[in-house]
C-alpha cells in the first residue's frame, strides 16, 4: 500500500464505540448511523470531516463494544486511517477487517487539527508536513495491508474463495 496523505482531526484518549456508533441509531442503516458518529462529543464532526481525512487519537481508541459499525462509520465518512497511540483489541481487528487503516503510533506529540500528514503504513512512518517531523509507527505487514486494500476481510475472503473454486451456490 502506497503512502497516503490527509488532513488531521485530533481526538483524545479512550474514544469509545458508543461515541463512534451510538446505540440509539444501531437499528438503522450504516449511512444513518454514520451521521451520528462522535456527535456526543463533537456535534459538528460529521459536517467538518472530508473524504481522505485522517484521525489522530490518544490511547485505547475504540474501547467498548464489539460493534464493527464503529469502524464502518469512520470509513463511510471517508476517513483514510486512524493513527492512535494504541487501540482497543476488538476495534483494531474490526478496523482492519472492515478496510479501515488503523496504525499504532505511540508518540505523535504536537499534531493539531487541520495539519497535513503523510502516512506510510508499511514502513511505519508518520510525517507531520508543517514541521517536517517524523514519528515512528508500528508497521503493518503486507498481507494485512492487502486485506485492507481489498476493502476488508469479507471481500478478501470472497476473492480467496473464488480463487479456490468456491463460490456462491446457485
Amino acid at each position, binding site marked *: 500500500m502506497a503512502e497516503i496523505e490527509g488532513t488531521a482531526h485530533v481526538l483524545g484518549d479512550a474514544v469509545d464505540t458508543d*461515541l463512534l456508533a451510538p446505540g440509539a441509531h444501531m437499528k438503522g442503516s450504516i449511512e444513518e448511523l454514520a451521521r451520528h458518529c462522535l456527535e*456526543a462529543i463533537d456535534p459538528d464532526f460529521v459536517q467538518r470531516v472530508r473524504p481522505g481525512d485522517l484521525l489522530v487519537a490518544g490511547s485505547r481508541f475504540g474501547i*467498548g*463494544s464489539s*460493534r*464493527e459499525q464503529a469502524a464502518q462509520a469512520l470509513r463511510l465518512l471517508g476517513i483514510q486511517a486512524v493513527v492512535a497511540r494504541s487501540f482497543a483489541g476488538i476495534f483494531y481487528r*474490526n478496523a482492519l477487517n472492515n478496510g479501515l487503516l488503523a496504525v499504532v503510533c505511540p508518540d505523535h506529540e504536537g499534531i493539531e487539527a487541520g495539519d497535513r500528514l503523510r502516512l506510510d503504513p508499511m514502513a511505519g512512518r508518520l510525517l507531520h508536513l508543517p514541521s517536517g517531523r517524523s514519528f515512528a509507527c508500528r508497521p503493518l505487514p503486507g498481507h494485512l495491508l492487502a486485506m485492507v486494500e481489498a476493502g476488508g476481510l469479507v471481500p478478501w475472503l*470472497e476473492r480467496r474463495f473464488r480463487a479456490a473454486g468456491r463460490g456462491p451456490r446457485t
Partner: protein
Amino acid sequence: MSMGRTLAGKILARAAGRTAVEEGELVTCRVDLVMLHDSGGPRRVAPILERLGVRPWDPSRIVLVSDHYAPAVDAESARILDLTRRWGREHGVARHYDMVGICHIVLAEHGHVRPGMFVVGGDSHTPTAGAFGAFAMGVGASEMAAVLATGEIWLEVPQTLRIVLDGVPGRAVVAKDVMLALCRRLGLGGADYRVVEYAGPGLAAFDLDERLTLANMAAELGGITGLIEPDARTAAFLGALGMELAPEELARWRSDPDAPLASELRLDLAELAPQVAAPHSPAEAAPVEEVEPAPIDQAYLGACTGAKLADLRMAARVLRGRRVAERTRLLVAPASARVWREATVDGTLATLVEAGAILLPSGCGACAGYGAGLLAEGETCIASTARNFKGRMGAASARVYLASPYTVAASAIAGRICDPRPLLAEPVGSVAEEVRGG
C-alpha cells in the same frame, strides 16, 4: 527458563491442536462454541455468508440469543427479531434462546460453557464465560462471519495479567466494586488485550454469579478474555445443571505455578470500600464516601453484569421495608427468565416492587441504549451496568454513575448517591452462600 504454562496458553494450545504455544505466537484456533445475538448476529452475518456462498460450518456449535432488541419496541426491532428466528431455523441452530435473557447469562445458566473451552462471541462482553475457565473472546460481525464460514480464528497468543484477590470483603463490597476499583487502577482498557486472570484466596468470597461480573468486566479493562480457574464452586454450579466435571478437568485447566505472567496485581478486598464510577467512564471510580452525593433521577438494576439473582438479592436486602425516594425511579430488568422465576419464588421481586421498583423485561435494554428505560437530557442515573459512556443510555447530556446493586439500591432510597453500608444492619457475608443455598 520457565516451562510453566498459563491457563490461557493451555486452552489456546488445545484449540490450535498443539502441545504448547508461546505468548506472542500467531496461532489459528478451532472454535468450540460460537455465541451470536440479535444485534451483531444473523442480521449482520447472514448477508456476508450469502455473499461468500457458505453456510455455518457447524450449527451444533452455535448458540443464538435474542436479547438486544427484545422485546421489540417498534417495527424495526420486531423485524430484526423475526429475521433472527428465521435464520436460526433455516440453518438448523437448535439452541436459539428467544427473549429469555441476556446472552452471557443464558450461556452460563444453561451450561453451555465448561472449563477449557475456546469460545468466540459476537459481543464485547463474551469474556463473561471466562468465569468457568473458558477462553472467551468477542469479535465484530465480519470476523464472526469468517468464524462461521471456517470454524477457525487466528490470534496472537496473549500475555496474562493476573489479578490476585486477597482478604475478605467488608460489608456491601462485591464483585462490581472490585471491577470498578480495577478500572480506576489500570485505566479503561488498561489490560491492553491481555488475558485478565483472577486468582487468590479472595475469590472464595465470590460465587459464580459474582465471578461472572469479574470476568464480564474484563472487557472494560480491555482484556481479550477474563479467566478464572475452575474450582469446587464451578463444579457444583455445573453439577446442578447436570454437567459432571471430572477431577482431571479441574486439575488440567489451571495455570502452572511458574507460568509466565506479564504482570501481577494484588488487591486486598478487606481494604476496599463500595465504589462509584462517575460519568463517563468506569475508570472514574472512587470510594463512595469520596463521591459527591448527586441527586438521582433514575436508578437502574440491569444488564449482563448487574441483574443476576445475586444482584437482585443484594438490592432486596437494602430495599426491604423501605421506599424509593419520591423524585427517583428505580427500574429493574432481571437478567434472564430464569432469574425472574427464581427471584419470584424466593420473594426478591416482591421486595423490590413493594419498595417501588418498576420491573422491565429481561434483555440488554437501557444499558446499551436499545430498549426501555432511557434517559432525558440532563438527567442523572446510577446503574449496576458495566458502562457509562457518554450518550450510551440515552441523551448525550445524561450523566450515568456505576455502582454495585447495594449502592444503586441505597441511592434509590436516598434519592442521591448513597453509601449502602449504614443501611445493612448486619455484616454481609458471602452473597454466594445465600444465592446457591450453600
